[in-house]
C-alpha cells in the first residue's frame, strides 16, 4: 500500500510526497518489528538507500538553490541507519549476510561523498575580514576531515574483506574484488604505496586460488579508471543511450597516473568533448597494468570512452 503510494509519487515526479510516505512506511515497520530486531534491518537499509538516492537526485539542484550545506539530514539519516543495521547484524553474528558487505561499501561511499562535498564547498571564498587566518583554518579543517573520512572508509572496506573471508567456503574472486576496492580507496586518497601493496595482495590471492587469467583480468581491470564509491547508488547507462565514443591512448605509471593522452579516433569529432575527456583522463586515477603477476610502469593503454549527453 505505502510502497504503491511511494512508487506512484516517484513516477509522477513528486519526490517530496514520496519521501513522506517512505518515512511513514519505516515508522510502521518499526512499530511492527521493533527498532533493534533483525527483521527491521531490511527496512532500515531501504530507508537509508532511499535517503541517499533522494539526496543524490536533488543535491545539485538544491545546492544551487539553498547554498552551502554539509550536514544534510538525508545523509545523516542514511549514515545512522546503515550503522544501526550493521550493529544489529553484528550482534546477531550475521557475518555471512551479504548485506553486511554491501552496507560497509555504502558507508565508505558516504564518507567519500561527504568529503568531496567539503572540498567542493571550500572552494567558495571565506567571508571573513581576516582572510589569511580563515583560509588556514579552513585548510586545517579539510585536512582533519580528509583523515577522518579516509580512515572511516578504509575501516569499512577492511571489515568487508573480513566478512568475505569469514565464510567456511571463501569465494576468492569475491575477496579479491573487495581488496581491489580497498586499493582503489587508497589510490583515491593518494596513498599510492599502500594501494600498490593491496593490489599486489589481491593478485596473489587470485593466483594462489588458481583463478583463470581471463577472470583475473576481469577482477583487476588493469588500465581502467578507478571507480569512485558513490557509483554504488547509480545505475550504469544502457548501451543504446550512448551518443558516441572516443578512442584514446595514454601512458600509465605503476601508481595509476595517466600521461600523454592522445585521441585516436572519435565518432563525432567534437573538440569540446575531446578536450573534456583529455582533462578527465589527466585528473583520474587508473588501476595499474599487470603482466606475469607484476605491476607494470609506463605502459601504453588504449581505451574507448563511450559517452552520453
Amino acid at each position: 500500500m505505502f510502497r504503491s503510494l511511494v512508487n506512484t509519487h516517484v513516477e509522477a515526479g513528486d519526490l517530496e510526497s514520496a519521501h513522506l510516505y517512505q518515512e511513514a512506511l519505516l515508522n510502521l515497520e518499526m512499530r511492527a518489528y521493533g527498532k533493534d530486531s533483525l527483521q527491521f534491518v531490511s527496512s532500515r537499509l531501504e530507508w537509508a538507500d532511499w535517503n541517499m538516492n533522494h539526496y543524490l537526485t536533488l543535491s545539485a539542484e538544491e545546492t544551487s538553490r539553498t547554498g552551502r550545506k554539509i550536514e544534510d539530514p538525508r545523509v545523516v539519516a542514511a549514515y545512522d541507519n546503515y550503522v544501526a543495521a550493521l550493529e544489529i547484524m553484528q550482534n546477531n553474528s550475521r557475518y555471512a549476510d551479504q548485506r553486511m558487505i554491501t552496507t560497509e561499501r555504502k558507508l565508505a561511499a558516504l564518507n567519500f561523498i561527504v568529503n568531496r562535498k567539503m572540498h567542493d564547498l571550500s572552494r567558495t571564498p571565506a567571508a571573513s575580514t581576516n582572510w589569511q587566518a580563515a583560509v588556514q583554518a579552513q585548510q586545517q579543517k579539510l585536512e582533519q576531515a580528509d583523515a577522518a573520512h579516509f580512515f572511516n572508509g578504509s575501516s569499512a572496506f577492511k571489515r568487508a574483506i573480513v566478512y568475505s573471508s569469514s565464510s567456511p567456503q571463501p569465494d576468492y574472486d569475491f575477496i579479491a574484488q573487495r581488496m581491489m576496492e580497498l586499493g582503489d580507496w587508497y589510490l583515491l586518497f593518494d596513498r599510492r604505496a599502500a594501494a600498490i601493496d593491496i593490489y599486489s595482495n589481491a593478485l596473489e590471492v587470485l593466483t594462489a586460488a588458481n583463478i583463470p587469467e581471463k577472470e583475473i583480468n576481469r577482477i583487476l581491470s588493469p588500465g581502467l579508471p578507478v571507480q569512485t564509491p558513490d557509483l554504488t547508488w547509480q545505475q550504469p547507462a544502457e548501451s543504446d543511450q550512448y551518443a558516441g565514443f572516443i578512442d584514446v591512448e595514454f601512458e600509465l605509471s605503476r601508481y595509476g597516473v595517466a600521461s600523454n593522452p592522445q585521441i585516436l579516433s572519435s565518432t563525432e569529432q567534437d573538440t569540446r568533448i575531446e578536450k573534456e575527456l583529455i582533462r578527465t583522463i589527466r585528473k583520474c586515477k587508473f588501476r595499474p597494468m599487470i603482466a606475469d603477476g607484476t605491476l607494470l610502469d609506463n605502459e601504453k593503454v588504449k581505451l574507448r570512452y563511450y559517452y552520453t549527453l
Partner: protein
Amino acid sequence: MKKWLSVSSTLLSAISSALMLCSMPVTAREDLRNLNFFPQPISSETVTGPLLAPALDLPIADQEFLDDAEGDMAIAESIAKYTLQASDTENRSGPYDPGLIQTYQTLASLYQQSGDLHKAVEMLNLQLQVIRVTKGLFFN
C-alpha cells in the same frame, strides 16, 4: 612551519582535485553538464560492437501501436467497471466498507497503467483512508 603549510596545502589541493574530478562516470561542466563517460578496454569485440540500438522495424512498431491502442481501450473499460463497482459499494455500505480497499487498489493500478498518476495517487489515498478507519491508524 611555513614550508610545512605550503607542502600540506599542495597535497590538499592534489587530493581535492582527485576527489573532485576522478568520478566515473564523469560529469562535465558548463554546457556539457550531462556529459558522462563510460570507458571500456579496446578489444576486437569493442571495435565491432554496436554503438547504438538498431532502428525499430516499422511493421512491428505499427503492430505495437495497435496493441497499445487495444490495451488503452481495455484499461478504460476496466476503469469504468471498477469505478461503478466502488460507487455501488459506497451507496450500499458507506464510504468505509472494507471491500473498497481492493477496489481502490485495482483502480490505482489501472490509472497507473493508463499514465494518469494523479488519479492513481487519489485512489491510493482513498484506500489508505479506508484502511485507517477499518484497521486502525498503524496497520501495515
